[in-house]
C-alpha cells in the first residue's frame, strides 16, 4: 500500500509541484517537457524530461516508487489505476472506475509485458 505521507516534489527554478503519488494517474512525455495527469482531471505541464521525472520518483518515493511503471519511452503510469489492457487492440485504460478514465498509448509488446506483470502479481 502506498505511503500516504510521502510526496513527490517536482521543482523548477520558478515553480514547485508537491503531489501525493496516489494523485498521479500517469505522466507522459512531451519532448523536453512532461505532462502529469492528476486524478482530479487536471493536466500539468512539467519542464522536465520523462527520464528526469522517473529519477525523481525513484529517489524521493524510495520503496513506494515501484507503484509506478515506465512503459516505453513516453509513459509512466500509476499501477494502482490499471483498469483495462487489450493487447490485440493496443489499448490501455487507466481508471479508478469512478471519477476518471484515461486511455493512454502503448506498444503491443509493452502491453503484453504489462499484462503479464499484473497477472504475476495475482499469483
Amino acid at each position: 500500500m502506498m505511503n500516504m505521507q510521502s510526496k513527490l516534489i517536482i521543482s523548477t527554478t520558478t515553480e514547485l509541484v508537491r503531489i501525493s503519488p496516489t494523485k498521479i494517474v500517469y505522466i507522459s512525455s512531451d519532448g523536453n517537457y512532461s505532462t502529469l495527469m492528476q486524478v482530479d482531471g487536471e493536466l500539468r505541464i512539467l519542464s522536465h524530461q520523462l527520464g528526469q521525472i522517473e529519477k525523481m520518483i525513484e529517489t524521493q518515493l524510495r520503496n513506494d516508487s515501484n507503484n509506478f511503471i515506465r512503459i516505453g519511452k513516453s509513459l509512466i503510469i500509476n499501477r494502482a489505476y490499471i483498469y483495462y489492457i487489450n493487447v490485440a487492440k493496443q489499448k490501455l485504460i487507466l481508471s479508478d472506475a469512478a471519477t476518471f478514465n484515461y486511455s493512454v498509448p502503448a506498444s503491443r509488446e509493452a502491453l503484453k509485458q504489462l499484462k503479464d506483470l499484473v497477472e504475476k502479481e495475482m499469483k
Partner: protein
Amino acid sequence: MSEYKEIRDDQIRVINSENLKKKPSRTQWIIIISVLTLLFVGIIIGAVSHYKKNKIQQLQEPEPALFEPIEEPEPVPIQWLGNTPDSTALGYTEIQDTLINDIPIRIYIPHNADLSLHIGRMNRKDTTVIFAAQAADVRADNGGIVGAFVLKGEPKAWGLSKKGYCASINGQTTIGVADNSPLFEQATEEGGYFFRQYPLVSNGEIVENELKGKSIRRGICERQGEIFMVETGTPESFHDFSQALVDLKVNQAIYLVGSSAYGWAVDQAGITHEFGDDNYYTGRRKMPKNTSYIVWRRK
C-alpha cells in the same frame, strides 16, 4: 540529452528505488570474484617464491659487496736459509751443512758480496774473493767455453747447448731456464755477466738431464730470492742432486762444474774452505785457459 535509463517503446519496467543501489550484476560479481581469486593466487605464489628465495639465499654463500675489501691471502713470509748480517759488515760466505734425502749437502751463502765471472787462473791471495767455483764448462776439443758467456759486458761465447743460465747485471743475480734469454743482450749492454750451464730446477720443479754417472755435484740456486751455492758431500746423479734441491724448496738452479773442480769459500771468521782438487790447479795437468769461475767479491 540521453534518457535517464534507456528503454525502448516495446519495454516496460517497474520504477524501483532498488535500482539506485546499483547492485553488482552477476557478470560484475564474476569479475570481482575472478579478480579477487587472481589476487589471492598471486599473493600465494609471491609468498612461496619469497620463501624459496630466502631459503636458497640461506644456502648460498653471500656474494661479496661491490666495495667489500678483497681479502688477499697473507704472503708467505720469506724464510731465507742464511743469516741477515748488517749491510756494513765485511763480506763472507756462510756455510751450512745439512742432509737431504741422505745426501750430505753443503750450502754456501755469500753475504755482502757481488757476483761476477772470471776467466783464467784465479788469484787465491785475492782477499776480496769470498767464494769461487768453476762456472761454465770448457770444451775438450778446442778449449772454448760451452754455452753463451758474457764477461763484464763482453761476449765470450754464444752457444745455446745448455738451457740453464745465470746472469749478474748491476748487482742483480738471476738464475733461470730458457732457450733464449734477453739477459744475455742486457749483460752485454750493461757490463754484466752471463753464463750457461745444465738446468737442474726450474720454477721449483726438477729438470731431468740425460747425463749419467755420479759425481760431486755443485750448483747455484735461487730460493725465495736468496742466491746460494750447493755442493754434495758424496757423488750423486744429476737426478738425485736436482731432487735434493727441489726438496730444499729451491726455485731455480743450474749446475756448476762439479767433481774435482777447484774452488773455495771464506767464512765469517776469515777461514778459507777449499773444495775440489787443488792439484788440478797446480799439478801437472794444464788448466784450460778458458776455465771460468763464478766469483763473489766483498762489496
